[in-house]
């Protein structure tokens, strides 16, 4: 009798749960259920952040995100898309530009980083001011010198377009474009961009061998650089002052702008060095045009200052031979599988 009662209430509870679930889903239309995807963690990578716990990754969600990423209508003048500053062949950075073009002949005030392995980043932007990938697009969309647009305007444009209504319906079961759905779709698209198939990765997997110079460069890297540019992401995601003097025009104090702490003055997020040969120029304001110039900066020693990282204060002793090897090694971090991946390309 007792057991029966327990079973009875279990069935009832299950019934209630499904009933409640269906009650909330009533706006879903009859279209197909989105196809689930999983983010595959490359061998040797740590577990990614829980980016998709509240935003289930689906084929249709990623597809909508991709269309949005390459659509100029996310900007006020219709000309500037995310993809115009984040170009696939440049590992999603801006090809050969220190600063990128925004609307109306304006420029950004920082160098556009490459976009890959973002599901492993706790915080975004050079100063770490953005704490979640879903809300990152709000920054370029609303910035007057980037896309200069207003969210409600974008939603008006999207909701007036039957193609988008179909894409939103396929991804979220409802044709209405909302800010949350748009942001979640962009997050799905950016979140699955993974770069882990460089020569370096294939060497680790035992598929190819490094040349002598590459192997020697790797040894120098592990000794001198890996403390901050930590494998396998090639960044420890910390904020450091690598000794670049303050640009008097830009007056960019980096991390301090977010935390308000003087101890964070001139600290910037350690950039990943994956695909670094594709993302010239270098540094948060693109002040170095070549990798050799960056290495020279480390060798000659940074400009002294209270927040300069202790590891760099005295300069790094790197011989000319070592420097040449290091450059060879850095080119092994280029991953053309991901830059040519059709899933990440501009649609159509």
């Amino acid at each position, binding site marked *: 009798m007792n057991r029966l*009662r327990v079973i009875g*209430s279990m069935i*009832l*509870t299950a019934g*209630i749960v499904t*009933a*409640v679930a269906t*009650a*909330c889903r009533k706006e879903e239309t009859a279209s197909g259920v989105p196809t689930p995807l999983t983010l595959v963690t490359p061998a040797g990578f740590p577990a990614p952040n829980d980016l998709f716990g*509240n*935003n289930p990754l689906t084929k249709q969600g990623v597809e909508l995100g991709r269309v949005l990423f390459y659509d100029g209508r996310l900007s006020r003048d219709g000309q500037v898309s995310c993809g115009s500053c984040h170009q696939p062949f440049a590992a999603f950075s801006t090809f050969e530009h220190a600063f990128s073009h925004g609307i109306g002949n304006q420029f950004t005030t920082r160098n556009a980083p490459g976009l890959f392995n973002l599901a492993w980043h706790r915080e975004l*932007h050079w100063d770490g*001011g*953005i*704490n*979640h*990938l*879903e*809300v990152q697009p*709000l*920054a370029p*969309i*609303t*910035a007057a010198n980037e896309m200069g647009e207003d*969210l*409600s305007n974008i*939603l008006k444009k999207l909701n007036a377009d039957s193609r988008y209504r179909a894409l939103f319906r396929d991804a979220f079961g409802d044709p209405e474009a*909302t*800010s*949350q759905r748009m*942001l*979640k779709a962009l*997050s799905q698209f950016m979140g699955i961009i993974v770069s882990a198939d460089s020569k370096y990765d294939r060497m680790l997997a035992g598929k190819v061998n490094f040349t002598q110079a590459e192997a020697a460069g790797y040894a120098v890297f592990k000794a001198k650089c890996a403390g901050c540019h930590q494998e396998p992401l090639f960044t420890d995601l910390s904020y450091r002052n690598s000794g670049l003097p303050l640009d008097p025009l830009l007056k960019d104090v980096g991390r301090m*702008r*977010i*935390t*308000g702490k003087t101890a964070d003055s001139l600290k910037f997020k350690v950039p990943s060095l994956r695909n670094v040969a594709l993302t010239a120029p270098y540094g948060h304001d693109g002040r170095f045009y070549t990798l050799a110039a960056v290495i020279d900066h480390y060798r000659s020693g940074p400009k002294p200052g209270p927040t300069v990282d202790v590891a760099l204060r005295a300069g790094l002793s790197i011989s000319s031979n070592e420097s040449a090897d290091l450059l060879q090694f850095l080119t092994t971090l280029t991953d053309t599988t991901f830059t040519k991946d059709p899933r990440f390309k501009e649609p159509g």
Partner: protein
Amino acid sequence: MYTRWLNILLMAALLWLSACGKDTSIEDPGYRLRIRVVPMIDGFPLQRGVDQSNSWGEAFRTDVFRIYLGGFALLDEGTDPVSDHPDTYHLLDVFDSASMSINIHGNGTPFRRLRLQIGIDSIRNVSGAQTGSLDPLLGMFWTWQTGYIHAKFEGSSPASTRPDKRFTYHIGGFRQGQDSKRILMLDLPVNKAWSLERSGLTEITLHMDIGAWFRSEHDLPISAQAQVMQPGLLAVQYADNYARMFSLESIERR
């Protein structure tokens, strides 16, 4: 045996009713409570685009005043909630009268105090794209540095040191040392416990006196700074002051 089934059924009904609504608490929607917020400036009604003055003698005109309230709870004589609406937010806009009345519900248990929160919990500041009253579309969200603007106050004043004579206060911040969320407990102005009535409406009137924004816990005349648009020590001071804007004027049956 029967009571158990009845309980389960009742739970089911309540779950059904509450699961899709905005509030997460399981309460009886029959017990209605309206919280009406009346904007004032040093005892006078706040008006749009009209010269008014603060207690520093500074004339000013208000163009925008928006503030997030939320986390309403009805408390017994201690601090235990008899009815709780955690993690629910309402955006008040003093020039949109509909937004100035907040309709919630509770239950029949007597209470003596009202708890409310100014600003948004940190968890909502770090969990990605939100919707409803937290939609970034509402313009209460910083884009270059993730986080909600808890209160926005904009206007003009001859006391402003800025060339265009405008003042702009965007106050928020959730990180350690920058927290500008404030929790208030307001006693009912009656000397006894109050109970909501089933199928009845109780109305609480709160005064929100913007005079305290400029002068209460801290002295913050417009002439001292006319622009605060990021979290930090100053924002925390404005938060201490906006916490002093609210007083519970009356509670009545409607």
